[in-house]
């Protein structure tokens, strides 16, 4: 009888230890899981804060390539900005980037270029990863000009059109094909490309292409004029012709680079829209300043309409003409996705028409205050 009681007590002790042990274990497992989440959030907030400051600073230094180390994490980019993990996205205005940024070497490539039309409008920033491969179709016209504007640190491959089918995926998480065409020359489109099976097997979102159509080449660099771009995404084993991509305008090589580094049509649309909004703001300030210069220097027969500095700048009429030209820009800017040829012509002109660059040079020659 006595030994039976002892056995029950022993069994009860074991059950008690088991229940209590399980409770303690669950308690700590829950705490560890919660702490893991908290630590991840803390890390993301920390990365987000530092990244935002680094990118803001880097945006002000044009023409310099920055290679920054990032923790082993993925940065997402869309119209609302850059986001790390579950943190709220931060906006960098005129900043172009692929939709996903990550790097096996934990490096990010950042640089900015000054976008002027003809006065400085904004610093356009580009962010990419060395793990993204940019494949330039070598028969494309202006390939040499493209080489000049692409930074050296990015992974670029030059491939002949008929060799694209032999180009294998080399563990790049994203591949972007670039084709440049010009009117009057034989043209290729991304639809004509035959992809290697290793690339065909990649996710559709990770393989994209851009077709650049130059409408008016620039003077120093063919890509520094204006034209249109069409952005394609892989559909199965090739680039699909349907739905037919809408041609997006670009003006000057800086905006074109933005299109090259944006793998999604919608991000190029919204960042370039932001760039044109900044152009409208800058133009507004330049128009007011040019109007104020005209008021100061105007030399009218009627003494009531003479400016305080009348007689000190013979070419004061230029200020009025420039003010009108800048005012006219707003009409072209309202049509955000329309043809940007008029904006380019107002800035640099083609032929005999007046343009802002010519006016600025005239003012410089006559030692008058400049427009920009």
């Amino acid at each position, binding site marked *: 009888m006595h030994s039976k009681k002892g056995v029950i007590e022993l069994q009860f002790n074991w059950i008690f230890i088991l229940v209590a042990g399980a409770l303690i274990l669950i*308690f700590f497992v829950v705490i560890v899981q919660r702490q893991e989440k908290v630590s991840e959030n*803390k890390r993301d907030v920390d990365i987000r804060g530092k990244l935002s*400051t680094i990118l*803001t600073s880097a945006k002000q230094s044009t023409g310099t390539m920055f290679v920054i180390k990032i923790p082993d994490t993925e940065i997402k980019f869309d119209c609302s900005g850059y986001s790390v993990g579950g943190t709220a996205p931060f906006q960098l205005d005129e900043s172009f980037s692929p939709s996903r940024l990550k790097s096996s070497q934990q490096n990010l490539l950042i640089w900015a270029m000054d976008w002027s039309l003809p006065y400085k409008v904004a610093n356009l920033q580009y962010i990419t990863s060395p793990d993204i491969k940019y494949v330039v179709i070598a028969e494309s016209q202006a390939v040499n000009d493209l080489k000049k504007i692409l930074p050296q640190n990015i992974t670029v491959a030059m491939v002949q059109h008929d060799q694209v089918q032999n180009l294998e995926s080399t563990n790049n998480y994203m591949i972007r094909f670039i084709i440049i065409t010009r009117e009057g020359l034989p043209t290729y489109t991304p639809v004509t490309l035959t992809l290697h099976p290793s690339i065909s097997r990649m996710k559709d979102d990770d393989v994209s292409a851009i077709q650049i159509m130059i409408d008016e080449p620039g003077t120093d660099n063919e890509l520094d004029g204006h034209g249109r771009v069409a952005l394609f995404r892989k559909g199965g084993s090739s680039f699909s012709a349907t739905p037919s991509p809408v041609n997006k305008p670009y003006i000057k090589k800086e905006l074109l680079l933005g299109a090259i580094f944006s793998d999604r049509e919608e991000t190029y649309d919204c960042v370039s829209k932001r760039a044109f909004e900044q152009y409208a703001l800058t133009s507004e300030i330049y128009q007011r*300043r040019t109007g104020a210069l005209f008021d100061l220097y105007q030399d009218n027969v009627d003494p009531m309409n003479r400016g305080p500095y009348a007689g000190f700048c013979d070419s004061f009429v230029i200020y009025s003409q420039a003010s009108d030209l800048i005012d006219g820009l707003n009409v072209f800017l309202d049509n955000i996705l329309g043809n940007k040829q008029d904006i380019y012509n107002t800035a640099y002109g083609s032929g005999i028409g007046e343009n802002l660059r010519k006016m600025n040079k005239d003012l410089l020659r006559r030692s008058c205050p400049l427009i920009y």
Partner: protein
Amino acid sequence: MIMKRKAQIRMSESIAILFVFFILVVFGFIFYSKIEARNFELQKGQVQDLRAVEVAQTFSFLPEIQCTKENVATSNCFDIMKLEALQEYIGESLQNEDKYYDKLLRSSIVVKEIYPSPGNSWTIYNKSNFAWTRKIATQIPISLFNATGDPSSGEPSRYYFGALEVEVYS
């Protein structure tokens, strides 16, 4: 009977030990959470400091107001005529002011001339009309460019000394 009571006492002892153990763990956890919350506040403060630097930097490099000669910009230099145009534009309507909100957040931005006329100042942007709890002030020395000078008195275009005062509120 005595054995049953002994077992009950041992059970109560074990439960009491467990209770004390959990109390200690909970105390430890509360203590740790308090430290974490304090660290989080510190981190939040650092983020706000960084944001204040970002605002000052963004304003310093606004293409609308930078001094340029044939489109070559001079760093840390503001063209007075452009400053006046921007002040007028932002002051015209709330809609215009809002166009700068994404860049300048809740801040006030004042450009002051230090030499030769210390009284001159331009309040470019002011979004301080809310119940803020923290203010971070940054002051940056700058140059101010008078593009016209005063030709009637033979004074050419010239540069002045100035300061950019940025206060970011949160």
